[in-house]
């Protein structure tokens, strides 16, 4: 006869396993379903034509996804370049430098920013562009700025929590040999927070990936491979959001859109897994 406590332990272990498995199975299920739906286009067009060709002429049966993939990368990478330094320096300021009174105000402000629905940022971006932004226009840069503004509060908020976890003792150990505050922040605080910062970044962008509306309002949506931040772009997310459910009369169109969704899923998965692996490496080195 097993005791009640042992039983509860056993059941909860099983339940947790089941919950984890459910999440994994869902991802797998989505991937398989998207693949099945994308099969017709994979059967008629070669992989090279689909992924490396830049010609997107659905009415002629040409579905080159390359411009969209590049559009996604451009907007995301540029947004990262803008968002990461701002978030990390901001979080450092709040945890390490700001006097207690500033800290008390800054924290709730960041939380509020993180809670604003992304579409509001999109509309704000549109308004800002139409007022003073003729010089910027509808292009990668505008999209990246809007995306960066969306992810900064998330990354900043999480980074701040991560920085706060660094033990005071370790910071003092650095200061005690004569390091300045900035040297301590760089060598100790950021360094021991790297895993957490990576997680914060993934979290921020995973959220932003899903929230296309804001970006697609300002990015231009022209199916051409951008060659500079000032060119318009058409990210995968925008392609899917703009077109799914429309123009279904064109043969293979919906299949192409679902293929785009599959590619997006794989790209996100790839970055997540890559980041995890880097994390494990980093932890082994410094933990």
């Amino acid at each position: 006869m097993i005791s009640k406590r042992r039983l509860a332990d056993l059941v909860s272990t099983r339940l947790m396993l089941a919950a984890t498995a459910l999440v994994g199975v869902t991802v797998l299920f989505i991937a398989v379903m998207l693949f099945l739906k994308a099969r017709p286009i994979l059967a008629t067009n070669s992989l090279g034509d689909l992924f490396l060709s830049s010609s997107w002429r659905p009415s002629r049966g040409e579905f080159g996804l390359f411009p969209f993939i590049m559009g996604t990368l451009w907007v995301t990478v540029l947004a990262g370049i803008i968002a990461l330094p701002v978030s990390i320096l901001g979080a450092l300021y709040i945890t390490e430098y700001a006097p207690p009174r500033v800290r008390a105000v800054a924290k709730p402000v960041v939380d509020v920013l993180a809670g604003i629905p992304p579409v509001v940022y999109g509309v704000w971006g549109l308004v800002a562009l139409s007022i003073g932004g003729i010089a910027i226009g509808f292009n990668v840069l505008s999209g990246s700025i809007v995306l960066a503004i969306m992810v900064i509060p998330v990354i900043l908020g999480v980074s701040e929590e991560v920085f706060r976890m660094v033990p005071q003792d370790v910071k003092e150990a650095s200061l005690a040999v004569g390091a300045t505050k900035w040297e301590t922040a760089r060598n100790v605080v950021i360094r021991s927070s790297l895993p957490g910062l990576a997680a914060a970044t993934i979290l921020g962008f995973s959220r932003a990936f899903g929230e296309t509306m804001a970006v697609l309002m300002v990015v231009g949506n022209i199916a051409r491979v951008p060659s500079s931040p000032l060119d318009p772009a058409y990210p995968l997310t925008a392609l899917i959001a703009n077109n799914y459910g429309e123009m279904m009369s064109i043969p293979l169109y919906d299949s192409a859109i679902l293929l785009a969704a599959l590619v997006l899923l794989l790209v996100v998965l790839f970055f997540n897994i890559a980041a995890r692996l880097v994390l494990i490496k980093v932890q082994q080195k410094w933990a």
Partner: protein
Amino acid sequence: MNDICLRIHGLNVSYDGHTALKNIYLDIPHRQITAIIGPSGCGKTTLLRSINRLIDLTDGAKIRGEIWLDGHNVMSDREDVTSIRKRIGLISQKPSPLPMSIYDNVAYGPRIHGMRDRKELDKTVRSCLETAGLWTEVKDRLQSPATRLSVGQQQRLCLARSLAVRPEVLLCDEPTSALDPVSSQNIENRLIELKKDYTIVIVTHNIHQAMRLADYVVHLYLGELVEHGPASEVFQRPKQDRTRAYINGTVLTKPRTDVEINLKGKVCPLNFVFAKAALENLEIGQVLKVIVDYPTAITEVPRAMEYDGHKVLGVKQLNETDWEVIIQKRE
């Protein structure tokens, strides 16, 4: 400079209005070991953190007074706090390795102060690890993370890291309180060797340790300086009643031993068996003294006896090889 290293002049510290140190006037002798003793909460840590200005980091701390090091007032706003901390190192109670390799931990300070040359760094790292008594244990894994070291090794690494910036003064806040008896002994031996080149100030709760190490003793009580003077005087003829009470209260009640067994030459499991058997024959409250020389036994015998519910009153090194463990029988 003559024989005074640090001169503390009218130091007052308060936290949010609550006074932690009152009007401290104190001279700390050059290249000697000064022990600061006193009950918990009397301001020992506060005093050390004032001396190297780490107290600046505490929100709400207010400091008044002067601390002179070699013509510089450490407390003055005009002094560069990083160069003060380079000259006055601090080792904290809990070993706190930086999140990097063993090598980088020791090289951290020198690099910050501008040492770039690889050979010079190698040499510094090696000599500091040697001085801290850690070199032979880590020389083959300098690149592995410092956090993987044992706690005792970590504390010696912290010592090496402090030494690497060539400080003049070394402040140690209960450096052995997190360590087992062997590691504590190891640190104590290092400090005794180091005093020929450094001025050392050590905070300790362990009067025996203060007696073993100190040349000069400072007794604090509730933020006030009660008594200070050469160790021989303060320990043997304390002028103040409070000092006498503190010294007598904490230690001098040497446990009287009821039975003594000598386990020299015995290896480990046997040590437990004999110690256990000897305790069986005692009345509750009686005291057993065990002499051991097997290295593992020094930490494991006390641990096992405590596990059995007895009370370990003390572990002390007698000579090169022998240690005594004093156990009081319970239950």
